């Protein structure tokens, strides 16, 4: 039968995909790079000239096999030392979804990179070597995914080919994880898949070697896992980013509040409250470019016109439904990202949504051991890669939610004065 000659049919439905962001963590030995390489290669996201280039580079580094890590280890220092220094972003698409991988090095001192990669992810992919089972590293990755409130965890039990595709080994690892790791984390959705990244079992296609496994292949799971429920659609939050004021006769009194919806669903006619002023008004229109919109929800970038002329600027928030917390003394989990330790009582910049303030850390409530999730109330020094719960005081009240309610209005970064480096990641309790 002949297909109608529409844009959709000509582009194979590619205009109609959802976006899934996931993070991977693991060391070289887990086969993480092999797995990513396979996903990219089988979805045709690796091109011939890239393959040629990494073949050349692998040969020069004395490797007989093509080292797919060279695809993501883009910096010269990484290639020379055979290590991954930084988060690398990789892209691939199937007809169902487009994927962004934040590939992070798994070594212990790179907690900061894992936190960075996890901050934007919908899903975390964790690899376990079937021969080794659940290791300290597995726990650490899981705890970070939990800390950053990634709802979905996919545990790939890899190298099943090296344990004769033995169901018992897979089940043992699964029950070990469910008994010893899962109860400590609040990720709502944990899945297990037995795979061989090297041979391709259960990566793209279902494996013939593990008839006992009835679930989907990894790619099938990534293509179908439901992620829209991860966004907060019930509490309206719109941090004002920029005020659009055209200087023209045609748009004389126009004032558009531009920003990205952080929570809830906004519609023209809705009654909203402006924070911190506390004044109420209604939405006159919601726009993007010259187009009028009927509704706006996360993660859309829009601009709004309001019925009343209220003084609103960057850093204010347009709110609907439930009310946010407004406070100057805050409790937050923080991950420290700098080699220079945190100094109690010292001033730092703090950036929260579109709002810039200064802050001091007044107290360390406890330190968190990321390998065991045990709280340490004795230790009182926060250095690189440390995770702790602290008390913060800010120069102005923040309009915020708890991180578990809203990842955007519940997070902030700490910036060192002088160097302007980003030194801390905050998640409000």
């Amino acid at each position, binding site marked *: 039968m002949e297909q109608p000659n529409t844009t959709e049919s000509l582009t194979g439905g590619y205009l109609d995909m959802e976006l899934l962001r996931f993070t991977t963590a693991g060391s070289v030995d887990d086969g993480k790079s092999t797995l990513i390489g396979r996903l990219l290669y089988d979805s045709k996201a690796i091109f011939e000239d890239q393959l040629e280039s990494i073949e050349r580079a692998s040969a020069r580094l004395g490797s007989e096999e093509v080292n797919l890590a060279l695809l993501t280890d883009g910096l010269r220092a990484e290639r020379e030392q055979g290590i991954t220094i930084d988060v690398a972003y990789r892209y691939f698409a199937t007809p169902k979804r487009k994927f962004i991988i934040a590939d992070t090095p798994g070594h212990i001192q790179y907690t*900061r990179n894992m936190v960075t990669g996890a901050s934007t992810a919908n899903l975390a992919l964790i690899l376990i070597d079937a021969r080794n089972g659940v290791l300290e590293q597995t726990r650490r990755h899981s705890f970070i995914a939990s800390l950053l409130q990634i709802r979905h965890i996919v545990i790939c039990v890899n190298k099943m080919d090296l344990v004769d595709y033995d169901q018992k080994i897979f089940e043992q690892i699964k029950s070990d994880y469910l008994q010893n790791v899962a109860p400590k984390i609040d990720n709502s959705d944990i899945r297990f898949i037995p795979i061989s990244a090297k041979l391709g079992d259960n990566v793209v296609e279902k494996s013939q070697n593990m008839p006992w496994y009835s679930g989907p292949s990894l790619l099938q799971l990534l293509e179908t896992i439901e992620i829209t429920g991860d966004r907060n659609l019930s509490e309206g939050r719109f941090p004002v980013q920029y005020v659009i004021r055209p200087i023209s006769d045609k748009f004389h009194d126009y004032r558009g509040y531009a920003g990205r919806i952080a929570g809830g669903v906004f519609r023209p006619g809705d009654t909203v409250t402006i924070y911190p002023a506390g004044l109420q008004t209604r939405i006159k229109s919601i726009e993007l470019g010259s187009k009028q919109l009927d509704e706006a929800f996360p993660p859309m970038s829009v601009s709004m016109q309001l019925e009343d002329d209220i003084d609103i600027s960057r850093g204010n928030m347009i709110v609907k439904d439930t009310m946010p917390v407004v406070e100057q003394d805050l409790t937050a989990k923080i991950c420290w990202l700098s080699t220079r330790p945190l100094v109690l009582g010292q001033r730092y910049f703090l950036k929260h949504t579109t709002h810039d303030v200064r802050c001091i850390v007044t107290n360390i409530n406890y330190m968190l051991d990321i390998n065991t999730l045990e709280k340490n109330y004795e230790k009182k020094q926060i250095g690189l890669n440390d995770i702790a719960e602290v008390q913060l005081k800010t120069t102005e009240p923040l309009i915020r939610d708890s991180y578990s309610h809203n990842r955007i209005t519940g997070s902030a970064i700490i910036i060192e004065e002088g160097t302007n480096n980003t030194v801390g990641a905050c998640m409000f309790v």
Partner: protein
Amino acid sequence: MNQYTIKHLQELEAEAIYVIREVAAQFERPSLLFSGGKDSIVMFYLARKAFYPAKVPFPLVHIDTGHNFEETIEYRDRLVAETGVKLIVGSVQESIEKGRVVEETGPEASRNMLQTVTLLDTIAEHKFDCALGGGRRDEEKARAKERFFSHRDVFGQWDPKNQRPELWNIFNGRKNLGEHFRVFPLSNWTEMDVWQYILLEQIEMPSLYFTHRRKVFKRNGQYLAWAPFMQLKENEKIEELDVRCRTIGDITCTGLTLSKATTLEEIVQEIAATRVTERGSRADDRRSESAMEDRKREGYF
């Protein structure tokens, strides 16, 4: 399926517009680097959407090697005339005449490397504290490590091993005097996303991206456009073929693809079927394994 889903192109658009508005809010003197290629055309289109009905609150900056495709300059000038945006041109020819750079010689000579000096001089001359660019992480492996907000020191240099962590959608544009930022709102877009977006939004593109008959010659396995100032080597001969550009840069280093694609739909189909990256056709990236990283460290786009 939940009614509050958003398609990948809308999400990428929303992210890019957010980043562009963040630049307007955080910097005093931003600018938008405009090469006349598809990425910078999409960037300017997004900027217009981000600030509508107001004008884009920053100028376009074109670093002109003098070795352009004529079509690029025609398109640029028409866009400027139609939208009323301010255009600033930094001229590599002037940098050569002032002795700031020395022209490469020989048949493989390119002004691509020289652009960095002109770019940094232009940024300094106009006191820009931020330059928006259309760079994408999927283009090249060194770019895969690039931040949305990428810090440059007083010498305009990039230090890839010492980048600020970038978490959630919070962008740290704080800097000291003399430093500047390069900001890449299209970081998460792929070549395919760019073309799909152009198709979806029906953005007008320069004719170079569609098939046309042109005098070309083959060098190092790729077709280059012939222009009067280009020296042919022995055994290189001029042919007339149906070609199009996948990327547009300086005419001396932009490889051409044999193509019959006359519409945006056909370009999207062609890219879906291709097995070579777009940068594979850029002679400037083929110079060495870390050509892009080296140029970026120096302050390249």
